[in-house]
């Protein structure tokens, strides 16, 4: 094999199978010399762009309009980046009118997979539609709720979901500086999921992925807070309600008859929630006491659980080597300064890990001991001017709008601009020893910074939002 062939091979493996490219080692992922990594990233980006130019119509149209035919330097990709709006650019009326054939046609232009043969005949709800896509295509679509009352629909794929879970395990159970042991690679844990057991929303899809990835499908080791699922159609209704309220048209909101028929079922589910919460609490503090667990939720939910636990005199609940992952920012929730101490005291674990990511990209970036979110090697980070979206220099300390190009994304285009203000110190060599570029600790949504009321339904608010929709249904004659 010539040197060129070897290089070509390594780029292909780097971009398609980074897990084995890095020998399943978290340490190696963050130990590639900066220049060497950037060279790999540039070439991989160029190749992925050519693939996606051919296979993703919306990208092709944008590139053609901007007359971009190849990507050589990092900044070349910036004009081609999608904003979060790209994934909800379908007319919401298509869902009201059950035109899932047209929804499929729309989604087809956003994904690299061919959806032209998907059969949507007789589809009556978003969840049904997504189930069809699950059955008939490599996609595993996730939804997330947006600011204008339209659901984002992200064409993720099953392969990425599987890879993602392996990567989570790598990041969660390994320690930087230590090559993985067999036990690190195949941990045996119970999963605590303080949320609904299932659903198509971004973080709820993860529930199934986690179940598959962490418990080998053993249902008894999966411990959700609520046994039920969040219906995407109910979330769509909640989004529509918010949009209608903003427009002053709540009086004319119509509820889909199929959803309305299930009103009593939803109300019963809502009524069960307090008991479910009690049962969940007993389960984690008694049945799972002292066990090694994996638990993940947002800061504020984790804090609420910890606080409630301490008030009941329960603390130091889990095995010290448990994996705890939190994040999600401080969106709209004021927590006391010592909230992390409260969480740690209750859980009784050695470390709590924190991650940063956004749903349009698939990769999560784990924080190091210094609190910096180190960017995973297949993701190229950018700091953009917050207003013009022009890239800021990749030197010195820069604060601006976060954007990433995620090479690993195959099902949809990997260039996305976030709504978050981040700081990157490009010249920093982090004292933690990781060679990778990192986002500094303080990340804030621009909408929060402006003090604008952000009606984005965050994952933290799912519970409230679902209840909002059910309460609305209670209030209308169906």
């Amino acid at each position, binding site marked *: 094999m010539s040197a060129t062939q070897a290089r070509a091979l390594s780029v292909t493996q780097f971009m398609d199978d980074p897990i084995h490219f890095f020998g399943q080692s978290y340490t190696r992922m963050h130990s590639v010399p900066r220049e060497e990594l950037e060279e790999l990233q540039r070439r991989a980006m160029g190749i992925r762009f050519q693939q996606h130019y051919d296979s993703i119509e919306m990208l092709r149209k944008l590139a053609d309009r901007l007359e971009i035919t190849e990507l050589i330097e990092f900044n070349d990709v910036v004009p081609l980046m999608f904003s979060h709006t790209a994934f909800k650019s*379908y007319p919401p009326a298509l869902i009201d009118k059950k035109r899932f054939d047209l929804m499929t046609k729309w989604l087809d232009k956003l994904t690299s997979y061919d959806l032209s043969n998907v059969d949507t005949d007789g589809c009556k709800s978003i969840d049904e539609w997504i189930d069809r896509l699950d059955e008939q295509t490599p996609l595993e679509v996730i939804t997330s709720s947006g*600011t204008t009352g339209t659901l984002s629909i992200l064409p993720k794929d099953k392969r990425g979901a599987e890879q993602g879970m392996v990567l989570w395990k790598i990041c969660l159970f390994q320690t930087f500086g230590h090559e993985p042991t067999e036990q690190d690679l195949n941990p045996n844990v119970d999963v605590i999921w303080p949320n609904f057991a299932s659903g198509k929303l971004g973080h709820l899809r993860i529930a199934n992925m986690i179940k598959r990835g962490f418990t080998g499908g053993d249902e008894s080791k999966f411990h959700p807070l609520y046994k039920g699922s969040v219906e995407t159609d109910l979330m769509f209704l909640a989004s529509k309600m918010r949009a209608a309220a903003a*427009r*002053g048209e709540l009086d004319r909101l119509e509820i889909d008859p199929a959803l309305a028929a299930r009103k009593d079922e939803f109300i019963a589910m809502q009524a069960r929630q307090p008991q479910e919460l009690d049962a969940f609490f007993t389960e984690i503090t008694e049945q799972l006491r002292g066990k090694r667990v994996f638990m993940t939720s947002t800061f504020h939910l984790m804090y609420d659980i910890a606080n409630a636990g301490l008030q009941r005199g329960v603390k130091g609940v889990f095995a010290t080597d448990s994996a705890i992952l939190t994040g999600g920012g401080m969106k709209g929730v004021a927590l006391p300064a010592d909230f992390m101490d409260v969480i740690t005291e209750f859980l009784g674990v050695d470390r709590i890990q924190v991650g940063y990511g956004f749903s349009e990209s698939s990769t999560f970036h784990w924080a190091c001991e210094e609190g910096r979110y180190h960017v995973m090697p297949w993701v190229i980070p950018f700091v953009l001017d917050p207003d013009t979206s022009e890239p800021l220099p990749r030197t010195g300390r820069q604060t601006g709008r976060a954007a990433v190009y995620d090479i690993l994304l195959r099902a949809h285009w990997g260039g996305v601009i976030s709504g978050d203000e981040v700081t990157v110190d490009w010249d920093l060599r982090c004292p933690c020893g990781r060679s990778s570029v990192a986002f500094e600790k303080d990340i804030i949504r621009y909408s929060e910074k402006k003090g604008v009321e952000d009606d984005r339904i965050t994952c933290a608010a799912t519970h409230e939002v679902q209840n909002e929709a059910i309460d609305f249904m209670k209030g209308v004659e169906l």
Partner: protein
Amino acid sequence: MSGAFTVPLFLRGRVITDDLVSFGTRSGAAQFEAPDMGRFVEQLPLKNPAQMTDLYDVTFDEILDVLEALGDALDFDTNAHLQEAYDASLVANVLPAEMLKNSYQVLRPLFSRAHVLEVADSQVGLEYLNGWVPHRLLDGRELRVRAFGSRVLHIPAGNGGLVSAVTILRSVITRSDTIIKAPSNDPLTAIAIARTLADVAPNHPITKHLAVGYWKGGDPAVEEVLYQPHHIEKIVAWGGLASLKHVTRYIQPGLELIALDPKRSATIIGAEAFVGEDTMREVARRAAVDIGVANQEGCANARVIYVVSGTDAAGLADANRLGEMIYEELVALPPFISTPPLYPDRDLFENIETSRMTDDFYRVVGGEQREGAIVVSQFDEPVDYSPMLSGRVANIVPVDSIERVTSAVNTYTQTIGIYPESLKHELRDLLPLFGAQRLTSLGYACSVAIAMPQDAIEPIRRMCKWIVDEECDPDVVIPLWRTAGAART
């Protein structure tokens, strides 16, 4: 840190610039200083309602004289107060210089004798303002009704100096005692008018019943003291959902809110627009003005435009062609009417770029330089980001029939610009049921008159206290005591 400019406190004829503290402007770019209102708030309200008697010694003729003199003195080229206000709004407001200057040039005619008379007579009635109007009821009693002024606090909007001028005009003709909270995005216009008033009518009762100052909206040190029924009887609040919601916490028996809610406006264009190239051009020109005036910062500006073009291929072609024409007319508007926005909304343009990529459903004309844009829906629904439309961006929505255009109207609707007139007649009994408050000829959405109801209420009548004097002659009006006496025997 000293600010870019100072917003003095105008206290019933006195101009105060002591105890200055710093504030940020609405755009966040600059700061200004104003007297610490916490120290002056006790002096803002009238000490005693009896002090309003002097306003009733002033004849309406004299009111007209004073306002006319005020108008004459509000000449932008010679009035230093206005020029100062203009300089301040250049840093405090999002609108460009030409447009702000223009907003001061329209003040003078507002205070002309004929205009003040028209407003006073049509919106209250001169006889009610100036005396007791007799009226005999069926039961025989003699009524005399008079419109008294009240002690009113105004929280005007800051998009254009006209709002401050109208506020003062309404206050003076109703013989009200007036406190104006200056808006941070137009901090000096009301004060400039007040100072001009003090120049032309020093020590006049009208001048002594006017106070204008700035405090940060929501400052409890000021509002909890001032917003009390023993100090003020009514609050007139314009725009801003947050600020309106904030004010409502102070409303209680004895303190009434006159809410000029935040609003949006829409446009309906009938099939008649497409009869020929010239008509289409004329319609485009009118629509462009409704969109473009003052860069679409106002509540009356056109945003979503329903077009009865049909949604078949020919109909869409018509709608798209109209979209192109409106765009051409929009960018050709002169700078005193409309310019590319100084601070375009990034989130909005992100949505527009996405619509541009989604060409199955939307056609986007312009917008690449954020100069404004027309988004033409290719089916009969508006874009989901329609509440964000601003900075000269409109959404054309083709529909098959006028039954569909009621969608243009909702709880938050103010003005509907309509073409042609016949369609307006057809719709005028229907649209108000859904929320429309003002129907006007296409192209006039933003030329708002004062001598008419506003936001479906009559704010000037509401600013008055309607007092009744009854005279009951026992021989005519059946006296209860006699009935009672008869029942005893």
